[in-house]
């Protein structure tokens, strides 16, 4: 269908305004995006399970609400989708795994309930790497998503479909999960904006576990402003998630309106040095933009970066604890890399797991000390531009040092946002990291950056 206004890439605030003015309706937008997704599915594999009937039913409901003049809810009629490890009642949830090809949960995850209550329209379930962990090999039962900027390249993972769908203009928001960087990696490689909230800020109830003490759920959008809209209904305490924090949430959209004059921003030089030259340059250029916005930018050293590899002891041990029975009884239902990488989690001694959690405490204390002197930390999101899909499957690539995982260990909020493009026209990205539960400052700084740059407004030719 051809719309008078192409709504593939409009922001959430713009879409809400179009609805209020009756320039376009939720049903029209939903139909348009469903058709666009279907047309691109063969090339992108962004979806595992589209839900067109449900989407149109929810869009009609939103339209009826709008026609009654009830227009106050900012997410009313906004099209979204969920990473396919998020449980959806009556809709299959594959976890990107051959083990769960036909699993239909009997309940919704908390994030689904929250976005539905906010009036969103669910378009479907998005591609995830297998159990939010191992990459999808070329012969995997579920095809891996591709990068909309260049289909030969990786969109990163594990929230790969979420990143691809946003970059391709198929949804206005998506849920991702992040245990070592699975929201921010796809945000970086797909040229969008993704927030890993503070550990405990967003409920993980009804989201299949990868690693209890490192898993985070959070919103992905095309801009920091969209992410603020998407986060607001998700933030808050949930007694059913043992990690959920009793810390007051706020209206993150309202928080965008303040400036960042005088904010102290640390540029992590020892993190910069592990990134490729083009990523480093883009991050340093971003630092200059922040300086121009009034922030005080100073070089800092991220403490104990060399200890962060201990994260793998934690994540692997916890993942093995979750998967041990299936790994023993049905190992060939796992991708071969994931099977062995998860089994390796059963090879660590209990004392090594405990020591890794003590390392985490050591890093957390040192980072808290660093944040006595700064308000935000700036560093690259990924050390490189997106590799080819085949390169991303190599063992050596999977073992490379990460940057995103530093903040899974500390649980701090971190937003990834576009900072430029490589010579191959592939997206580059940096992340802003804040104090625990200070998502407002993180998003505000990213929003102000996007107010004076245009990287986030560029879209792939599809």
């Amino acid at each position, binding site marked *: 269908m051809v719309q008078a206004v192409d709504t593939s890439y409009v922001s959430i605030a713009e879409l809400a305004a179009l609805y209020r003015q009756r320039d376009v309706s939720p049903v029209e937008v939903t139909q348009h995006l469903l058709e666009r997704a279907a047309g691109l599915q063969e090339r992108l594999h962004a979806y595992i399970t589209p839900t067109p009937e449900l989407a149109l039913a929810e869009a009609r409901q939103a339209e009826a609400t709008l026609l009654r003049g009830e227009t106050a809810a900012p997410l009313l009629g906004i099209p979204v989708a969920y990473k396919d490890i998020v449980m959806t009642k009556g809709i299959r949830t594959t976890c990107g795994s051959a083990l769960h090809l036909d699993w239909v949960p009997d309940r919704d995850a908390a994030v689904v309930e929250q976005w539905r209550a906010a009036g969103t329209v669910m378009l479907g379930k998005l591609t995830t790497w297998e159990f939010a962990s191992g990459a999808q090999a070329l012969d995997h039962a579920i095809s891996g998503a591709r990068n909309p900027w260049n289909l030969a390249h990786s969109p990163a993972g594990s929230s790969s479909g979420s990143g691809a769908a946003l970059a391709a203009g198929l949804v206005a928001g998506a849920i991702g999960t992040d245990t070592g960087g699975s929201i921010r990696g796809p945000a970086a490689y797909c040229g969008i904006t993704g927030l890993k909230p503070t550990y405990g800020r967003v409920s993980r109830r009804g989201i299949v576990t990868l690693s209890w*003490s490192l898993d985070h759920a959070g919103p992905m959008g095309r801009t920091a402003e969209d992410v603020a809209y998407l986060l607001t209904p998700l933030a808050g305490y949930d*007694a059913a998630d*043992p990690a959920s924090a009793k810390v007051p949430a706020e209206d993150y959209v309202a928080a965008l309106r303040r400036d960042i004059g005088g904010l102290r921003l640390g540029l992590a030089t020892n993190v910069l040095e592990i990134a490729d030259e083009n990523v480093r340059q883009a991050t340093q250029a971003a630092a200059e933009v922040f300086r121009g916005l009034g922030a005080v930018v100073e070089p800092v050293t991220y403490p104990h970066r*060399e*200890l*962060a*590899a*201990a*994260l*793998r*002891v934690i994540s*692997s041990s916890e993942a093995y604890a979750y998967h041990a029975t299936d*790994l*023993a009884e049905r*190992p060939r239902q796992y991708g*071969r890399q994931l099977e*062995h*990488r998860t*089994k*390796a989690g*059963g*090879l*660590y001694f209990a004392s*090594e797991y*405990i*020591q*890794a*959690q*003590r*390392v*985490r*405490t*050591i890093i*957390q204390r040192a980072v808290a000390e660093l944040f006595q002197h700064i308000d935000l930390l700036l560093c690259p999101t990924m050390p490189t531009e997106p590799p080819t899909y085949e390169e991303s499957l190599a*063992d050596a690539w999977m*073992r490379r040092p990460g940057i995103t995982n530093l903040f899974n260990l500390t649980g701090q909020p971190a937003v990834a946002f576009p900072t430029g493009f490589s010579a191959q026209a592939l997206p580059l990205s940096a992340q802003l990291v804040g104090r625990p539960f200070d998502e407002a400052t993180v998003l505000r700084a990213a929003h102000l950056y996007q107010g004076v740059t245009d990287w986030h407004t560029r879209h792939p030719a599809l």
Partner: protein
Amino acid sequence: MADETKITPEIVKQRAALAGISLDEDRLEDIATTMEAALAPLRSLDLRAIRLVEPAVTFEAAWPE
């Protein structure tokens, strides 16, 4: 038991046997390299200097609501 200061494919096999986990031979090298990198930070710790550091995972005595 072999020297535990470096994780080799042989050490991986020994640990797998202890844990009752079966692994394909051609994955041992990758697992050993991954585990070696993951455990290196732990070996750098002076445990006597961090006596008061508790692990990040804690137990909540309050019953679930």
